[in-house]
């Protein structure tokens, strides 16, 4: 069990390297940009996969957490604090090394929150919001839970769209790179394309490793028990409400990490990231990948997001997600990785072999 756990992660790492080499050899290095973006969306999808497949909860508001992470990072790293340089709190933050001086596009000096500090705020903020809305909302089940999270997503979308400070419909721009360690930054610069591809997919690999560990642990077992028979899980001592809440918060934080990193990578974020259609898309990806199938979710997420970002679906973008969801639900409701191609083929053969049914008497 242990070896297969890490073998899969290693296999995943090999695939990541293989894809990079292939884009290089195939003369399509620019594909890496969309693959990098797909990685950050994949973080949302794997967290949601845990929530839907293991805790058995649906969320139609995960784009909101992605946006909360992105907007927190984007806003804090672009908000100019230099006029307040000498003010008490700002001076204090500056002395603590949490602020950073930067030259803006026009050569002026600006002072803003350091990306690491902004990232920390993004995480804490998404955690706190997920906790606060999770407590009342997770008491609901099925359709009601979906509706409540949908409502939450709509609120966040309206807020970012309607707030002038957040750039309203234009969103935030000029978000600086995120220096992770010396010589390695999350940025959209062409020179950093390869390193950013590895940063993004390394982050996904790390997230996957944590989630795979979790799934194989006492907590993962308890989550599957909740999914299997909630009342019995409670009678075995599993604090059902608390485990659901923690899973919800964990998936929200993963979404916020993706949002924060993608905002630095793209140099900005727009309200579209919080749109309800985005949340629906994440749910569709998880459903197609197979609820609770982390690897199926990764495969689906990278394939669909990459094709979508490259613009292959054109104006039919959302329609394609809908059709894929529909087809997978009809042919393999447990997700593509659990699709047994023999089943539909056998059913078809059986139907062909069966002699024509006699006409029914009127």
């Amino acid at each position, binding site marked *: 069990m242990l070896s297969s756990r890490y073998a899969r992660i290693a296999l995943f790492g090999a695939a990541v390297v293989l894809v990079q080499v292939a884009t290089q050899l195939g003369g399509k290095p620019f594909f890496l940009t969309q693959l990098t973006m797909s990685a950050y969306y994949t973080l949302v999808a794997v967290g949601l996969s845990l929530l839907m497949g293991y805790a058995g909860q649906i969320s139609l508001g995960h784009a909101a957490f992605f946006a909360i992470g992105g907007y927190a990072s984007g806003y804090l790293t672009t908000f100019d604090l230099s006029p307040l340089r000498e003010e008490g709190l700002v001076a204090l933050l500056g002395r603590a090394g949490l602020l950073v001086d930067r030259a803006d596009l026009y050569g002026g000096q600006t002072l803003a929150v350091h990306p690491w500090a902004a990232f920390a705020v993004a995480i804490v903020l998404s955690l706190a919001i997920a906790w606060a809305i999770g407590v009342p909302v997770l008491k609901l089940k099925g359709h009601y839970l979906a509706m409540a999270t949908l409502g939450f997503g709509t609120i966040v979308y309206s807020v970012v769209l309607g707030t002038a400070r957040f750039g309203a419909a234009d969103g935030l721009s000029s978000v600086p790179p995120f220096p992770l360690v010396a010589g390695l930054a999350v940025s959209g610069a062409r020179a950093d394309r390869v390193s950013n591809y590895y940063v993004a997919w390394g982050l996904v690999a790390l997230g996957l490793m*944590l*989630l795979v*560990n*979790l799934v*194989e*642990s*006492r*907590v*993962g*077992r*308890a989550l*599957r*028990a909740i*999914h*299997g*028979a909630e*009342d*019995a*899980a*409670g*009678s*075995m*001592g*599993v*604090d*059902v409400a608390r485990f659901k809440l*923690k899973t919800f918060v*964990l998936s929200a934080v993963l979404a916020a990490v993706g949002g924060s990193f993608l905002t630095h990578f793209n140099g900005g974020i727009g309200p579209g990231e919080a749109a309800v259609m985005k949340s629906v898309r994440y749910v569709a990806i998880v459903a197609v990948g197979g609820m609770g199938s982390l690897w199926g979710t990764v495969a689906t997420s990278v394939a669909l997001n990459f094709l979508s970002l490259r613009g292959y679906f054109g104006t039919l973008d959302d329609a394609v997600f809908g059709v894929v969801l529909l087809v997978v639900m009809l042919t393999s409701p447990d997700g593509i990785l659990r699709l047994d191609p023999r089943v539909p083929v056998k059913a078809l053969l059986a139907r062909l072999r069966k002699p024509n049914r006699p006409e029914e008497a009127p």
Partner: protein
Amino acid sequence: MALLEVSGLSKRFGGLQAVGNVSFKVEKGTVKALIGPNGAGKTTLFHLLSGVLAPDAGTVAFNGRSIHGLPAHRVAALGLSRTFQHIRLFSQMTALENVKVGCHVQSRAGFLAGMFHLPWTWTEEREIARRARAELDFLGIAALADAEATSLSYGQQRSVELARALAAGPELLLLDEPAAGLNMRETVELSKLIGRIKDRGVTVLIVEHDMGLVMNVSDEVAVLSYGEKIADADPRAVQKDPEVIRVYLGEDDA
């Protein structure tokens, strides 16, 4: 002090008094049975004791500690474990995994420990696996460890459920109609098993329809009728109680 002391417990569903002012005790180390005709309120009483339902009135003290109104997982953590009248196994999990969930209250790895696969959790997981296998062995179904639990036969599923309840290391085990759906041979096995559970020092409270089993395994029998207790004594005395006979066999109006 009795292990479990129930006094004045009541529960009403709309116009139906499912449990009305019921009081009884379960002494440590004994097997006590709750019997009564269908609809007498036995299962509701179990739900009240295990925290699945909250009572309207009355108190439940377990080990001298008040537990009425506590949620099910808290009651379980205090050492009260149960099985269900309609088997409630975790689907898409093996028999062994089902029993491992029973060890939940005896272990503590949380989200962070699990995500980072901390070394101390390895020891804990090994201990959980050992305990779970030991319980499957105790029930004589060690060979079924890796079978999907819900695909097993009815009797085997009952055994898995029992193993799961025992894995929690309970002081008090509530068995809700454990003989339902079992054939005669399996029922005989069950009565031996309840004896072995008692020998482990586990106190047992059992709801059961099978009178042969009840009279065979119980130290004390309480009889419920229409939500109220009408008798509470040793099996012999209960069998002779005229009120019990009336409830079970009807009025002698010949």
